[in-house]
């Protein structure tokens, strides 16, 4: 066996549910854990679950969880031999990796060289083409003239996207279906780009119609052994943010699944990658797949893969960082049953997903067969306003997709988080949407299907009315009793002033007080 070390103590440079997930893996492996926390997180769960915890700064992430100097200093002082970055914050920051290495602390993640290659989209695209991994057909060089543009478009095949070089994030692009349309809008599109970005350079890319986002979980060790852990379907997104993930994907068959797995392994091998990671692809309706990017970190949605393969991905990631070879061969990895994950955000789905930080006043977790909750919150804990609004992930496993959906529905029904608003009700709506149930989804599903069309209600109107009326009855009864108490105790002084004070205190109006006093 190759030479390796075994970590004794690991610092987790993160917070919330992912810090807890990493602590859980470490504890199982007999590794001591060190938590770091900001001013807003003294009461957070990750502080309680770790063996040691150190304060690193004020609440804003730029003064705490993004402070490379402070985190490395804590790692040195507490005698850590490795640092786990989680996701977000410093997980893909090569400066952080260098700072760790300079102090002889292992960064649990890929080497800086592969992070550099894969971190830039243009560099990564070239690398992938060399490694025979399919990319979205097109060219990144700007078109020179209409004739030139028409020639390229013909080679690639319509429909195409005509994109502004200076655009991005969904802006400055136009879908073009045929040559006639291209001729008609060529000048117009360039003019728009000029006025929007001050730059009229445009390039052509093949349009992927109703794309699905399918990604492959991979693991590659320092000895060049690589496996894939099959795919995750992540098409259910809102504002380019994933909200529901599943494995397996209904968009592909076993043949394509195998091809994507091999392509993903070639993709990370091309960059000499040495950790767990994710290769993202777009898949069109004919099951063609195109490389999107590599996420060089542990991902939020890793639990769905853990549920269908039975492999502890965080443990595997730590072992790879220790220099151990991957203990599995590709043929050992089986994808069994179906898993779904719902991300629970502290947002109000009935108020345009407005963030809803605050104190959790009550919490009841779902349980029972096949249910897993990765949560960062607890009853009477706080969701600070400074960080990502994701508070928990609810994951279920069952023998197939219809059963997994049924199980997720019942788990969502059991889940209670009070004090803040969460996206639990929103997930309930998605899970009973007919097109979701049929697997008829794309990355546009939430925006075009769930948020636009009124969703049929399942809740019972009579029950809601009865609940509201009983509550009103009780509220009035309480007001009356407080008024009696007030009359008995506050006889003296100006009755108007007193009534005003009392009214403010009980949230009642003068009218109410008047009504009950007469």
């Amino acid at each position, binding site marked *: 066996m190759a030479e390796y070390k075994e970590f004794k103590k690991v610092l987790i440079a993160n917070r919330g549910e992912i810090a807890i997930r990493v602590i859980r893996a470490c504890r199982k492996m007999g590794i001591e854990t060190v938590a770091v926390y900001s001013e807003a997180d003294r009461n957070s769960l990750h502080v309680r679950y770790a063996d040691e915890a150190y304060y690193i700064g004020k609440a804003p992430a730029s003064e705490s969880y993004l402070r490379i100097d402070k985190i490395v200093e804590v790692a040195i002082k507490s005698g850590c031999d490795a640092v786990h970055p989680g996701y977000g914050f410093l997980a893909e920051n090569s400066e952080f990796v260098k700072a760790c290495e300079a102090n002889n602390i292992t960064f649990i993640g890929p080497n800086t060289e592969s992070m550099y290659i894969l971190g830039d989209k243009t560099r990564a695209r070239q690398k992938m083409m060399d490694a025979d991994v399919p990319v979205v057909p097109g060219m990144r060089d700007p078109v020179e003239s209409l004739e030139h543009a028409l020639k390229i478009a013909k080679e690639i095949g319509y429909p195409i996207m005509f994109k502004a070089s200076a655009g991005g994030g969904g802006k400055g692009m136009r879908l073009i279906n045929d040559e006639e349309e291209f001729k008609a809008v060529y000048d117009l599109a360039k003019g728009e780009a000029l006025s929007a970005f001050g730059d009229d350079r445009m390039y052509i890319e093949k349009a992927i119609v109703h794309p699905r986002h399918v990604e492959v979980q991979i693991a590659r060790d320092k000895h060049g052994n690589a496996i894939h852990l099959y795919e995750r379907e992540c098409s259910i997104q809102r504002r380019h943010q994933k909200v529901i993930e599943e494995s397996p994907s209904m968009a592909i068959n076993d043949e394509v699944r195998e091809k994507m797995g091999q392509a993903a392994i070639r993709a990370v091998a091309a960059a000499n990658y040495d950790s767990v990671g994710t290769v993202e692809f777009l898949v069109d309706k004919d099951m063609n797949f195109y490389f999107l990017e590599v996420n060089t970190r542990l991902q939020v949605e890793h639990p769905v893969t853990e549920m269908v393969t039975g492999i502890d991905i965080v443990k595997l990631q730590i072992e790879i960082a220790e220099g151990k070879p991957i203990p599995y061969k590709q043929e050992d990895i089986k994808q069994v049953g179906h898993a779904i994950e719902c991300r629970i955000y502290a947002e109000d789905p*009935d108020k345009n997903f407005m963030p809803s930080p605050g104190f959790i006043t009550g919490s009841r977790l779902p349980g029972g067969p096949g249910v897993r909750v990765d949560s960062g919150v607890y009853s009477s804990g706080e969701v600070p306003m400074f960080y990502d609004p994701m508070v928990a992930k609810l994951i279920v496993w069952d023998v197939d997709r219809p059963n997994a959906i049924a199980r997720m529905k019942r788990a969502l029904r059991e889940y*209670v988080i009070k004090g803040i608003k969460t996206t639990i009700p929103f997930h*309930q709506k998605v899970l009973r949407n007919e097109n979701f149930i049929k697997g008829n989804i794309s990355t546009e599903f939430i925006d075009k299907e769930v948020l636009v069309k009124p969703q049929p209600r399942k809740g019972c109107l009579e*029950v809601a009315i*009865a609940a*509201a009326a009983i509550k009103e009855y009780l509220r009035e009864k309480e007001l009356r009793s407080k008024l009696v108490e007030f009359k008995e105790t506050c006889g003296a002084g100006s009755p108007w002033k007193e009534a005003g004070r009392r009214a403010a205190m009980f949230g009642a109006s003068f009218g109410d007080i008047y009504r009950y006093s007469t």
Partner: protein
Amino acid sequence: MAYVVTVDKVEYRVTINEIDADKYEVTIDDKSYIVDTRLSEESVYSLIVNGKSYEVDLEYKEGVYNVLTEGDLFKITVMDELKKKMLERRGGGAAEGKQVIKSEMPGAIVDVKVKVGDQVKEGDVLLILEAMKMQNEIRAPKDGEVKEIFVKPGENVEADAQLVVIE
């Protein structure tokens, strides 16, 4: 007690009769239900209605009951018949006049888009509030003139803080 309950602009006649501790006879438009209620987790109620078990989440805010059940939100107003009649006689326009826009959540004011004296239309962006890495547009709930602004860019605000007055 007799109430007029309004949901999605439809009115229902509801009576409540307390028959035992936590137990009520409720009629909704002449249909009768026996309802047994228990409270858990602050605002989550267990209701047993004619033997069927339901769980609802109930919140009272500014005269409206927000009732969540099975992931569906019902916005419900409950008024006793007397009060409703009085309001109707007065010509009850609640949306008229001065309106104070409050912060729904704690956060930081990123930008204030209006100044005192501006005429705004319903849906116009008044200011931008950042919380949880997201920028949220706070919009005018009605047409009117900006009478007062309580916040400046860069300022942190608590939930329920007064932001702008529109009249």
